[in-house]
């Protein structure tokens, strides 16, 4: 008699492992996720935590780029796509169902050995000047960018592979990735490396690539270009948000750093996720999962956006 009571109590306790939380019915099944590198670290963290609650779910996460994520989902080759850019109307027509899950951003970068670095950090660069660099494609000089006499040319770099970072930076400049000028380098680290090597270079990177994950300071050899938001020609106190990763994520959360180049990151399904495990995963991400966002270097979404997402999932 006592044994069965004890075993009953044990199974009762096992069934409610998370003391104080609403018991989640363990979900079974498998989910395949594919897409942008920008979301990869966050999704991995979420998957790790999710599997603690639902050990019966098999989740496969592959990173191959935002475009691939979208293609895979629309082709039925993945349950969820990690997409680091806004979804095109054509994609929506094909059945894309995006849910915003977190935020991150793209920042402009120069080499730490840039001869005009102190001036850059003091004056910042305005959106109009960024457009001169990346859209008009003319040979610009550092003097033209900083409003001084320097004749040294600016070496502009961009991404060669179709990616969310480039689309977002282009969106900030009012264009699309294909409109961006500059030498195309493959991959985020490739672009960072190209900028690091060339003192006169300018490029852009996802904040997770621009800031060191451990020290939270800009990665060695790279400096972040402040955006002169009000065009005043100087970086004011409220515009000086680039010292550490925490500074910039706070600025993004407060909307001090504009969106774009900050952006929502999405998980996309084809129509409402039919896979029960996938649906539960997304629901969890929009609720309990959000608490893991700041420690992974991303920015949490506003409660309204989260509620909106949950409502759409019903």
């Amino acid at each position, binding site marked *: 008699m006592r044994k069965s009571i004890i075993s009953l109590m044990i199974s009762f306790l096992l069934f409610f492992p998370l003391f104080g939380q609403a018991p989640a019915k363990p979900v079974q099944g498998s989910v395949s996720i594919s897409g942008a590198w920008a979301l990869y670290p966050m999704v991995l963290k979420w998957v790790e935590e999710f599997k603690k609650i639902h050990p019966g779910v098999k989740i496969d996460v592959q990173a*191959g*780029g*935002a*475009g*691939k*994520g*979208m*293609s895979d989902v*629309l*082709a039925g080759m993945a349950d969820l796509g990690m997409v680091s850019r806004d979804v*095109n109307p*054509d*994609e929506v027509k*094909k059945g894309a169902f995006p849910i915003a899950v977190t935020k991150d951003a793209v920042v402009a970068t120069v080499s730490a050995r840039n001869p005009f670095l102190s001036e850059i950090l003091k004056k910042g660069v305005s959106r109009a000047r960024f457009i001169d660099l990346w859209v008009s494609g003319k040979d610009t000089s550092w003097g033209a960018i900083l409003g001084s006499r320097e004749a040294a*040319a600016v*070496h502009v*770099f961009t991404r*060669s*592979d*179709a990616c969310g970072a480039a689309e977002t930076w282009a969106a900030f400049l009012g264009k*699309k990735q*294909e*409109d961006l000028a*500059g*030498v*195309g*380098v*493959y991959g985020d680290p*490739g672009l960072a*490396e*190209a900028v690091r*090597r*060339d003192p006169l*270079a300018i490029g852009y990177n996802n904040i997770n690539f621009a800031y060191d994950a451990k020290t939270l300071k800009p990665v060695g050899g790279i400096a972040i270009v402040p955006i002169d938001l009000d065009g005043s020609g100087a970086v004011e106190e409220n515009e000086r948000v680039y010292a550490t990763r925490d500074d910039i994520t706070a600025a993004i959360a407060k909307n001090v750093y504009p969106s774009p180049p900050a952006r929502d990151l999405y998980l996309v399904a084809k129509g409402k996720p039919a896979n029960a495990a996938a649906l539960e995963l997304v629901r969890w991400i929009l609720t309990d999962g959000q608490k893991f966002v700041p420690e992974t270097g991303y920015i949490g979404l506003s409660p309204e956006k989260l509620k909106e997402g949950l409502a759409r999932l019903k």
Partner: protein
Amino acid sequence: MRRLKDLIARRAMLVLAAVPGLLVFLMLFGLLSRSKAILALKSFTGLLFGSAWHPLKGEFGFLPFLAGTLWVTLVAMVIAVPVSLLTAVYLSEYAPRVIREFTKPVVDLLAGIPSVVYGVWGVLMVVPFVGNVLAPLFGVYSSGYSVLSGGIVLAIMVFPTIIHVALEVFSAVPHELRETSLSLGATTWETVKHVVLRKGLQGIIAAVVLGVSRAFGETMAVLMVVGNVARLPKSVFDPAYPLPALIANNYGEMMSVPRYDSALMFAALVLLLVVLVFNLGARLILVRIERKVE
């Protein structure tokens, strides 16, 4: 029973022998049918010779990519052909046995290195070399990501192909011919010039043709070092955007943007056609030379 097996085998092999040809045809057909969408938009020549590439605006001009492919392949061959042939001649005619036994495996090993590794190495060493050493030497600016970098990396990848075939060609030249030449007072070099190279001309051309094919067909390694800018390069220090790189960089976008996937399939089709035409041309030249020799 044995005869039956022979007959079955013969029929089976006959069918299988049609496979390569069938494969080429299937590829042509498959790519063509997938390119229909974009061919409906613009004519074949319009696409090939258009110079603007803005897919989201519906502009699909492939000229910059064709030019990019041509430039990079040309530079690669300019470097690879002399170096490979000279090496092959040295190994075949001059080198002491020890050096030859050591170098031949090295050349074959070079052929085995995967293209990703070449690309990675190219970014590490070739790009800075071109950008920081060569370009300033010529008084130009280059980021290093350029036609020249692509050409250098490709050339090294092509060395083993040309050397291998050239060595075979040279070894096929009968010794008596060399001995006769030498006994007439010619130096080794003159023997090479007038006997070995002349006798092996056909084979050498075949080797070069093969090298071009190999250079042309390489995707990944070039992609990482060439700069990927969709503009006609004006010098070897400019970046370029070869066709294979276009496809590899953008395949992920294939389903999202209308006609983009069709355009990329068209790019693949163009590559296939270029290879076909090139091989046809090479075959014709070789046949003509063969006739002259006879």
